């Protein structure tokens, strides 16, 4: 339970302009309430239940599960990503609402892990999606997952957890990388066309 702990108070004192205070406050609310979409890809899915249940209770930090990507703030990718899985992950990520974050668990998203020579898993996740926080382990224990969330909260409070902006700005790069993997089985246009236009709003 680190609501307005000493670190927060110290940060708040340093802020000068009222707008900076508002931004800081918005970031504070964002970091204190994280709706998590746990995308269990394989072995790592089993680490999420102890993280959110009685033993480690992630809800102390404002982390709770979300049912659909529309409601989620963070997608937790636990482990290796097959090409087929990656397609769904990208789909899910694009459906989340900004600001949105990605936490990658374990070796596999970093450099392929034990599937380093597999024909159908991807080796480096950050080529296809902007990853905010990566947790080492195979699999990381719940403590490490919680540390991951805390690192993410730090990043949000600093205002640097802007993977979504990065994805939007460099969409060409990401889409090209994705295309290398998917080839002619690329995600259909309706899923990402709005990235290339202004999207439209009312």
């Amino acid at each position, binding site marked *: 339970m680190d609501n307005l702990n000493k670190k927060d108070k110290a940060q708040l004192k340093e802020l000068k302009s009222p707008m900076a205070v508002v931004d800081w406050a918005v970031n504070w*609310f964002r970091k204190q309430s994280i709706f998590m979409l746990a995308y269990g890809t394989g072995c790592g899915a089993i680490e999420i239940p102890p993280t959110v249940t009685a033993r480690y209770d992630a809800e102390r930090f404002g982390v709770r599960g979300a049912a659909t990507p*529309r409601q989620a703030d963070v997608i937790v990718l636990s482990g290796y990503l097959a090409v087929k899985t990656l397609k769904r992950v990208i789909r899910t990520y694009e459906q989340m*609402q900004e600001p949105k974050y990605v936490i990658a668990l374990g070796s596999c998203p970093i450099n392929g892990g034990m599937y380093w020579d597999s024909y159908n898993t991807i080796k480096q996740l950050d080529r296809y999606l902007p990853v905010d926080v990566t947790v080492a382990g195979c699999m990381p224990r719940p403590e490490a997952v919680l540390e991951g969330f805390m690192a993410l909260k730090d990043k949000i409070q600093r205002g640097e957890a802007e993977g979504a902006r990065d994805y939007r700005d460099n969409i060409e790069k990401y889409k090209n990388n994705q295309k290398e993997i998917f080839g002619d089985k690329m995600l259909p246009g309706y899923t990402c066309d709005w990235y290339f236009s202004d999207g439209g*709003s009312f």
Partner: protein
Amino acid sequence: MLFTIFNSLLAVLLTYSMGMLYYGFYRIGNARIHRRVGPPLWQNVIDNIKLFAKREAPGHGIMFHLGPVIMTAGTITSMLFVPFLKDSAWLQGFSSYGNLILLIYLMVVGPLGNALAVGVSGVPFGVMGVTRGLTRLIGLEVPFFLSVALLMSGSGTISISEIMMAQDSFSNWNMMAHPAAFIVSLFSFVGMMGASPFDVVGAPVEVYSGPQAEFGGKYLGFLAAQRVMFSMVKLILWVDLFLGGATNVFILMAKSFALFFFYFIVGAAFPRFKTEQAVDFMLKLPLIIGIGAVLVRFWSL
């Protein structure tokens, strides 16, 4: 007029803060039953503000946009037709222009408006949730209507204020005067509050979060805010109808919290019914008690 508008704003604020407080307690209590520590008490407020602070929201055209608006408007309108306090000019809203039957129907307007938005979003899971909700409603409304009809015909009035006024002493509270009606209405109450075992509508695992599947950002923020307010409206309605009403806000909070605690206990302890099980259950036990009460009433007359 200005006083009424001020009062309406006050009612909205009061129900919002009460609701956030109660649901904060709910989350902590639930966590304790799970043997967890649980979030801070004001976690719901943080969640709500965060949702409003999201930078974008999904959209499926104007009807999708209007759904949460109708939902919230329905909630607030029904709130304004419930008198919060008795013997007071405060927090009466527009309750003198309406009555209990109007209120029961007003409470359905919002969800049905939202159902349109769910439909237009094109998520079949959401529509499935809506159907479950409407089906469950059959089970909830019938015993509820029976219990409040007992109350209305017993008090000879359909006005909420007058039903509330008639309960001047503890022995006159409707939960004492009409115990069967109270028990029947409690079943519906738990269901209407969306607690287990009647929470199949928003069951995240089974129907991918139910009607709210496609809402995110500010829309979800509005829906979350109206949800707690709506729960408070129901609590206050039950306080008015069965617990003798309240003369000031603190008594209101005490009584409504007692009811809320009951809801919490049932919701935390029991597993979930399937939709048809919920309806069948509601059409069995509560309905039989209710019919028994009606028969007793008219034989004893």
